């Protein structure tokens, strides 16, 4: 494959991951709707799908502590990129997968990436999945990201997902679905910041289908200016299971945040908890940091940066 990484691309890659780190393990870099660089390893194979855009990633059983990077960058204004990536994680494998999308749009047309990622974990597999979304550019063309993540956990497997969208994305609808079998654990931690007139909608849907399955869904978000955020969390406890869903939002200016928790226990042994808190930065927090010598603005920035870290 031809190497097509320029300075803008490298900056975008560094925003969503670390460009130098990418090359240490298996990787596939997609730019403007096409794969441009790929490396496979002894344990990780990456194959281009034949029926639709995207790739299949196969991790051999018992693979230990390998990194897999599959970043996407879009620098072409007016492009809508739809991609299907499926991850097949073998028995007892333990890997870290870093994905994400960076959009650079200096023009007037919208740039959009819809990434549909499905994870199939075999028995005893463990995955840490890190996903970061970022937008930049001086044009007024919209930067739109709509990621879908589906996670299927077989007996004894677990997945930890960290997703963040801190800057520059005009509109996003993020859907995360989990289907959990016996003795599985799915931890999701999401961080979102919106400003201007950006909108972000997050939908979690977790089915706890096996005994001793558990999930912990945490969303921390900051909404400023006139941005809008919606947080919808649906958790179904169908067996003896545990779930904790937590939505914590800081609101500023004329922003709007809506949190809709929905927990359904279909089994008497299901233990489900939901917490949601939305509010402005506590005045006492700002005062405390001002007594340490920060201005009001510096105090607010420290509080928000800490909250979203």
């Amino acid at each position, binding site marked *: 494959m031809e190497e097509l990484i320029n300075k803008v691309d490298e900056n975008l890659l560094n925003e969503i991951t670390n460009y130098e780190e990418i090359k240490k393990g298996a990787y596939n870099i997609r730019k403007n709707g096409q794969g441009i660089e790929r490396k496979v390893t002894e344990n990780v194979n990456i194959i281009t799908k034949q029926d639709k855009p995207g790739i299949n990633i196969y991790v051999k059983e018992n693979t230990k502590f390998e990194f897999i990077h599959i970043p996407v960058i879009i620098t072409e204004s007016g492009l809508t990129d739809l991609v299907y990536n499926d991850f097949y994680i073998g028995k007892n494998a333990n890997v870290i997968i870093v994905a994400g999308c960076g959009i650079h749009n200096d023009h007037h047309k919208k740039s959009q990436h819809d990434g549909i990622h499905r994870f199939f974990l075999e028995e005893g597999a463990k995955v840490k999945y890190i996903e970061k979304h970022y937008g930049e550019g001086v044009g007024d063309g919209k930067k739109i990201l709509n990621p879908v993540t589906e996670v299927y956990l077989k007996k004894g497997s677990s997945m930890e997902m960290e997703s963040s969208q801190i800057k520059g994305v005009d509109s996003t609808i993020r859907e995360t679905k989990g289907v959990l079998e016996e003795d599985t654990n799915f931890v999701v931690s999401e961080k979102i910041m919106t400003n201007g007139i950006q909108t972000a909608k997050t939908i979690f849907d977790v089915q706890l289908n096996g005994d001793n399955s558990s999930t912990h869904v945490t969303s*921390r978000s900051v909404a400023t200016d006139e941005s809008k955020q919606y947080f919808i969390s649906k958790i179904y406890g169908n067996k003896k299971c545990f779930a904790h869903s937590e939505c*914590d939002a800081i609101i500023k200016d004329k922003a709007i945040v809506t949190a809709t928790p929905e927990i359904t226990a279909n089994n008497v042994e299901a233990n489900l908890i939901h917490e949601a808190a939305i509010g402005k930065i*506590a005045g*006492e*927090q700002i*005062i*405390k*940091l*001002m*007594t*340490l*010598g*920060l*201005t*009001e603005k510096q105090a607010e920035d*420290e*509080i928000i*940066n*800490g*909250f*979203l*870290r």
Partner: protein
Amino acid sequence: MLKLENICFERDNKKILDNINLNIDTDKFIAITGPNGSGKSTLVKIIMGIEKQDSGKILFEGKDITNLSIDERANLGIGFAFQQPIKFKGLTVHDLLKIASKRNITKKESCDILSKVGLCANEYVDREINGSLSGGELKRIEIATVAVRETKLTIFDEPEAGIDLWSFNNLIEIFEDMRNLIKGTTLIISHQEKILRIADEVILMKSGKIAKIEKPEEFLKNNIEDNTKCCKINKKN
């Protein structure tokens, strides 16, 4: 170093502070005591700029700070430990100590200061300052954040409030060592005999006024013998 002139503060037609005049010298350890509602907390909040007086003037090292903001006063060298330490989701103990010290202190330096306030440093330095910490732990962290600043004037608003006796007994040792830990002048609101005893002077407040300023021996003699006279001094500790 600190001079209060004719400080008045009134809310809901009640005089919280009634014409307070006070002079505090450099490198003194001054305790303020008095019954609830006597205006102690309001007075120290006015010194820090957290509350704004209705009238009166505040001079700090000869400079008129009456109209300065909280952060401007902080940067001139005034520190303030809150009665109820503030919690922060996301900020760690190390983050707060870095902000307080105004430089990129290392974790080792953070650990050293935490050890001085009686915390097993490695267990705490990366902890978030949230509800998982106990009242005693939060108090110690609060003290660490003011101690690390090495301010010329450090104010403590009732450090013993809200912590159990066991934690307080440990905390008192820290205050006994305060002159080494906190540089400059210390102004501390307290009802605890052990703290009053180590002060250079004890200021007694009653109904928004300074009732008297005495040496601790004299004050304790007068007030413990008949603690109904003015305020209740806690002798237990």
